[in-house]
């Protein structure tokens, strides 16, 4: 690969949750030896079924979750074992947007204060400067700054997600993990939020790890796509290549199952079933097309 140094580098990351008590002697890893580089200004999509470990991987990259094994770098600095204090200055540069905008806002906090919180932690601005900045952020994400003093329950799902995005970009980060940010939104709102993500990425030069299960949105938004299955990346490559020429049987099954809003297309296609019994687990990623890797 001839890219410059990646912003995020994950090498052989593994996560095993300790079992409670001594019931299961050796639980299966949730994330199992995943390696992934994310270049600056790149949007990497992460797809997979629930329980595939994609959200855990997202939290590991942000060090909201410790790594059981493997190594992790952010902006050239190794943070595999960074302490909370060592992480604090870096948190300015890495942010997160969650799936459920109803659970993501602190219900008893004014939304303006919620958006301002990263500023309190990471910058020495005073109160009025912070307020000014929050107003600016509200406008950036398409909300009326006059709404700053309201409480979360007064907002609809789409507006809440905008508030979360405003908070995420408040400290001027370079990297955002978006964990299923449109899944819980009404269909008529999803495009608004996806457009906002895209627009912010272009304007601020952001890098995203975009976790989703809506394949069409991932295809539209992302430069590269990684498909996760049971804690492993089974296929990764440029979005056009993965969607146009899926190599792994699970990716093929996934694509054949995704509903398409076109009656003729939908009626013509045949569903592929992925049967894990019939395929070996795979050992290592192998490059099958330029930048397009398959776990074999």
């Amino acid at each position, binding site marked *: 690969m001839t890219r410059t140094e990646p912003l995020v580098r994950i090498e052989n990351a593994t996560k095993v949750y300790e079992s409670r008590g001594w019931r299961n002697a050796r639980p299966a890893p949730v994330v199992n030896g995943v390696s992934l580089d994310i270049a600056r200004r790149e949007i990497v999509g992460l797809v997979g079924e629930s329980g595939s470990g994609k959200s855990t991987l997202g939290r590991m990259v942000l060090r909201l979750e410790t790594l059981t094994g493997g190594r992790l770098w952010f902006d050239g600095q190794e943070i595999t074992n960074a302490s909370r204090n060592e992480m604090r200055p870096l948190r300015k540069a890495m942010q997160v947007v969650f799936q459920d905008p109803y659970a993501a806002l602190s219900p008893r906090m004014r939304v303006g204060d919620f958006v301002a919180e990263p500023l309190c932690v990471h910058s020495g601005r005073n109160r009025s400067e912070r307020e000014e900045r929050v107003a600016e952020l509200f406008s950036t994400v398409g909300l009326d700054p006059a709404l700053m003093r309201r409480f979360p329950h007064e907002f*609809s799902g789409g*507006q809440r997600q905008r508030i979360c995005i405003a908070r995420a970009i408040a400290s001027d980060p370079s990297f955002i993990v978006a964990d299923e940010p449109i899944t819980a939104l009404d*269909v008529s709102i999803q495009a608004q939020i996806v457009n906002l993500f895209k627009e912010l990425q272009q304007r601020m030069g952001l890098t995203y790890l975009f976790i989703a299960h809506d394949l*069409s949105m991932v295809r*539209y938004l992302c430069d590269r796509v990684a498909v996760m299955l049971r804690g492993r990346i089974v296929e990764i490559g440029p979005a056009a290549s993965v969607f146009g020429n899926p190599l792994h049987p699970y990716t093929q099954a996934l694509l054949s199952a995704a*509903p398409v809003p076109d009656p*003729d297309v939908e009626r013509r296609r045949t569903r592929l079933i992925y049967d894990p019994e019939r395929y070996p687990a795979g050992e290592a990623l192998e490059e099958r097309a330029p930048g397009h890797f398959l776990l074999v």
Partner: protein
Amino acid sequence: MAEPLFRIRNLKIRIQNGGETGYPVNDISYDLCENETLGIVGESGSGKSMHVLAMLGLLPRGLAVESGEIVFAGRDLLKMNAQELRNVRGKEIGIVFQDPMTSLNPVLTVGRQISEVLVRHKRLDWRSARARARELLELVGIPDAERRMRAFPFQFSGGMRQRVMIATALACEPRLLIADEATTALDVTIQAQVIDLIRSLKERFGMSVLWITHDIGVVAGFAETVQVMYAGQIMERGPVRSVFYNPASAYTWSLLKSLPRPDQVAGEPLYQIPGQPPNPFRLAKGDPFAERNPFATPRCFEERPALRPVGDVQGHEVAAWYDLKTRIRETGGAE
């Protein structure tokens, strides 16, 4: 077309919250034929789920039918007494709900939960009911049915639980199966399997299917008729191809347009529907979608449109004052 299996006329559902009154279902009328598969598409608050709950007499507290009729196989469900309605539920109408995690009783075995429907409606004794329940489990594709009969819901995966729900709903071979967001909580691949399962069971049992979803893509594949709802009203309904390829409602058009197409140019932003979803307590007096509709005419804001036929396609109807194609041409497309 065949005889209608049920007919809804001017159904209005009222919600009372404090001093406010809202209408989550606001005067809808439609028919469903024997053997028809109808896909109802709408987002939260469209009234798509609420009106089927009303049909079964399962409206939550605080909601009530204000007016209208729901005639099922010749009898008005809304005029039935509790016992008559109970004899319809589970026997002539089966329903599968959204969340398979909470819709099954956690302390009863799966076998018991299927058999009890047969004991109730078919007057079977428990032994034969269990035997039939086992067949049903096999029918919905649950391996090792004999052993799984004795298992509890928490021992099943989400997809498997939804299969159990389907087996329960189909136990008495109902004339109508309602799937209320039945695949929303499932993974895409599991969703596809459940859809295929219901499609094949429909062939086998010869029933009508009412498929309620927020995902317009889901109904494209197997619904014969599509009905798009918004703010408690029917915006458009018609044969699936006609609605998808020639939408006549600006709402349908916008929904389809806002989904990224495979051939979409990456740099170009998605079409986005402006504004926020409607509030059932503050409904506009005119077309409920007017304020989010770039093609709205002044009349849309003033007066509520009724369903009218679209072109010469049999059964394609739209509630709109405007002619969408003309308006798109006049305004030069959206934005």
